[in-house]
């Protein structure tokens, strides 16, 4: 019985320790996206050299030791458009010939991917996406009753973020053409409509 008493004596301490461990674990996991110093947004911002106003910056071909983002497919040419919605809405448009694979993904801060499409999702041969924060999109909806049919409007979860465009190169010698294709993708800031 004495041994049991001793264990029971320790029990609250062990419980407290596990509770602290659990809280520390959960908080550190949830906090990680906010404090991670080299997340995808930080890397993207460094890669475009703080290019403002927002425009699409084609990245140099991937090379060992000079990767901008880890785990990217070397068969692709890539472009980045880093945006800040506090300066206005952003329109991303690209012609889609439906021939070669083209992927556009929208990333918010803290590792959040909130929209991703490929050229297959193009409407009438065109990709046309407008992103803004909640208020900007509302103002846009109010100003234009009928949106152009191919226009997709998205509410971004955070004001800052980046758009990543991946253009497939069929073979290594095709990289130049894939990079040229990136130039057909436009990424431009525009002001919200006046009430």
């Amino acid at each position: 019985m004495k041994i049991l008493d001793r264990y029971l004596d320790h029990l609250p301490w062990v419980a407290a320790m596990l509770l602290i461990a659990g809280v520390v674990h959960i908080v550190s996991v949830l906090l990680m996206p906010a404090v991670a110093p080299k997340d995808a947004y930080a890397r993207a911002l460094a890669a475009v050299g703080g290019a403002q106003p927002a425009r699409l910056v084609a990245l140099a071909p991937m090379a060992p030791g000079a990767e901008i983002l880890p785990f990217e497919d070397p068969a692709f040419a890539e472009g980045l458009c880093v945006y800040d919605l506090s300066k206005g809405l952003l329109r991303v448009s690209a012609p889609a010939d439906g021939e070669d694979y083209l992927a556009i993904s929208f990333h918010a801060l803290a590792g959040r991917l909130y929209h991703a499409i490929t050229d297959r999702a193009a409407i009438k041969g065109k990709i046309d996406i407008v992103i803004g924060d909640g208020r900007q999109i509302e103002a846009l909806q109010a100003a234009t009753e009928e949106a152009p049919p191919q226009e997709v409007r998205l509410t971004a979860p955070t004001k800052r973020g980046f758009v990543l465009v991946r253009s497939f190169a069929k073979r290594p010698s095709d990289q130049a053409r894939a990079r040229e294709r990136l130039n057909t993708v436009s990424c431009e800031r525009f002001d919200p409509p006046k009430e």
Partner: protein
Amino acid sequence: MTRPFAKYLRAAAVMIAGLAIGLAATALSLSSGYGFNPLRAGPWTAWPSVGGADIDPYARAVIARTGEAPLGIDQGLAFVAQEDSSGAQLDGACDYQIVDPTPAARLWTIALATPHGGLIASPAGRYGFSSVDALRREGGAFEIAVARRARAGNWLSPGDARRFVLVLRLYDTPLDVGANADPASFPKIVKLKCD
């Protein structure tokens, strides 16, 4: 006199131990893959939820730390293999052969990468093959050799790297990520010999 003092000491020890256990649990859980619900097929593993809106906090913490910009779930799936088909870790000193088949997709690529997602400098001058540029035998079957020494046909070299991973990316794939993947429809990684 010593009793209350011992109690404070004990409380401090419990707090420090709780902190340590919590942080260790975080480090451990973030170093083993990308959160929950991996999709496994033979040696290949993908985390489909990483590219979606329903990404779990663990996966978000991991990609914020590594700085990845994942593929969107609608764009494609990236499978990583750290082992060959027999379950042995991939070793730069060994020769491997990657053989048919691949799951249905608009296109696929197979590439080498470092365990942290970087490219590997290689004498072969290329980092991967795609469904378009891989040489095929009559009938459409293909095989890709992974070896340090030059091979005829599709050849990838891990260079001087001892540790590497293989990444299979399926773009615009109709693969059902909710269901179990059929390992027989994925490429096999066969170890031939080691130096």
